[in-house]
């Protein structure tokens, strides 16, 4: 039986660390020899979690501004919240009743 090999590989941007265990063995069945190459991969949270902790409120708000900026102009007519929408609808109904 071949020696068991172990390796760990870290992917910082996805925060995943892949642990890889490899072993080889040859089994016999009658006169046949079957070669078995076995790989096991387990997924771990990478030490890159510290990167996520370093993600501050300023980073978040900065990212949000970038995302929301182009929306402001095009969707300016959309009510700010569902409460506003309900208020507007009530006003419309009241006007219709009169």
């Amino acid at each position, binding site marked *: 039986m071949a020696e068991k090999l172990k390796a760990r590989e870290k*992917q910082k941007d996805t925060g995943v660390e892949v642990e890889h265990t490899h072993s080889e063995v040859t089994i016999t069945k009658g006169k046949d020899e079957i070669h078995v190459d076995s790989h096991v991969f387990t997924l771990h949270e990478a030490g890159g979690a510290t990167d996520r902790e370093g993600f501050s409120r300023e980073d978040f708000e900065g990212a949000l501004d970038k995302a929301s900026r182009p929306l402001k102009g095009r969707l300016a007519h959309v009510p700010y919240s569902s409460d506003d929408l309900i208020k507007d609808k009530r006003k419309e109904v009241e006007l219709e009743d009169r």
Partner: protein
Amino acid sequence: METTLAVAADNANVSTDGKLNIIGVFQEFTAETFPSLVAQLTLVISWSAEPVEFNSQKEVRISFMGPDRDERIDLPPIQLAIPEATRPGEPAIAYQILTLQDLPLLKPGPHAFYVMVGGETKTRIPLYVREPNRERGKEAPK
């Protein structure tokens, strides 16, 4: 621990970001003659384990069986160390890729790889072995 995917394929690998890539999934094999050897076959199994199983060790056993019991081949058991999940509250993920070379096939018919944990069959990977293609080599009618 449960299987979320189990197939026979030509090849498979796991990328550094934890993605499982599988090439050429198949369920049938046509033998040239009997007995026959499958030059290469890759078994791909994806496991999902719940938080209560984290940091435990599981023994995975795989047996290949054909229509006859004497055709049974037991692969060596594989120890699977269940890791913690990559995110809290989610199941842990593990992938197994086994490449078999020179797998003997004695007879045509339904075959399967039985994947067991703790003596219980978790899944089966079917492989239907077809008889030699007798039509091959014949000229097409003019």
